[in-house]
């Protein structure tokens, strides 16, 4: 199976549970949801925040059922708190 490289970046309260940047090698065709499951496996304490987080690729919000077909940077965005 063809592999792809994903860099996951987390912000805000998620940095309590993960390092700011995580590199993963996944099978091509993995969904964003499956990546989220892997994050949860890495630290189940993050579930509450992960459940209310949005995902972005190339500065655009993506659906959690999106299939990842190429190397990318996946940004995990917990609820915003600017202003």
């Amino acid at each position, binding site marked *: 199976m063809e592999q792809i490289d994903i860099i996951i*970046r987390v*912000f*805000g*309260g998620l940095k*309590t549970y993960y390092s700011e940047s995580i590199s993963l090698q996944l099978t091509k065709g993995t969904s964003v949801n499956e990546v989220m499951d892997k994050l949860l496996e890495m630290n189940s304490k993050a579930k509450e925040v992960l459940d*209310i987080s*949005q995902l*972005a690729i190339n*500065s*655009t919000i993506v659906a959690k059922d999106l299939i990842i077909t190429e190397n990318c940077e996946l*940004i995990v*965005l*917990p*609820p*915003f*708190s*600017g*202003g």
Partner: protein
Amino acid sequence: MEHLTNKPIELIAAIESLRSPLTGGMVIFSGEVRLSNNDKEVAYLEYEAYEPMAKKKISEIVAAAKERWKLNNAYCIHRLGRLEISDCAIVVITCGVHRAEAYDANRYIIDRVKYEVPIWKNEHFTDGTNEWGNNSTCKCSVHSHEHHH
């Protein structure tokens, strides 16, 4: 004009740069660091952003306000990094022919920025604890319903 900065916001310079003979009303909003939150004394704040997306989103929101209210000018800048009490965290300036559209547009911009722009606030309290903020439950003017994420 920039939308994010790690330096103190130059409010007076921003006002001067936005002045126009076509403007009859300029509204200035400055979001400032408050001494207390949720009955706890704040020591300082730290803001961070996913900068490429934050710049893009603020630019889109300001452009939408200019178009909707036919503003002469509009501007929004958010500070990042460590902020002390009474520091300015965000400034929104809107310039209209009359005050009504400048007020409405200003409120529209700040409400959308708080809800839609990837910026996060970490509040550090004087008791040594800290807490990440969450604007996701909002009842602001641009949304007619309460959100739960």
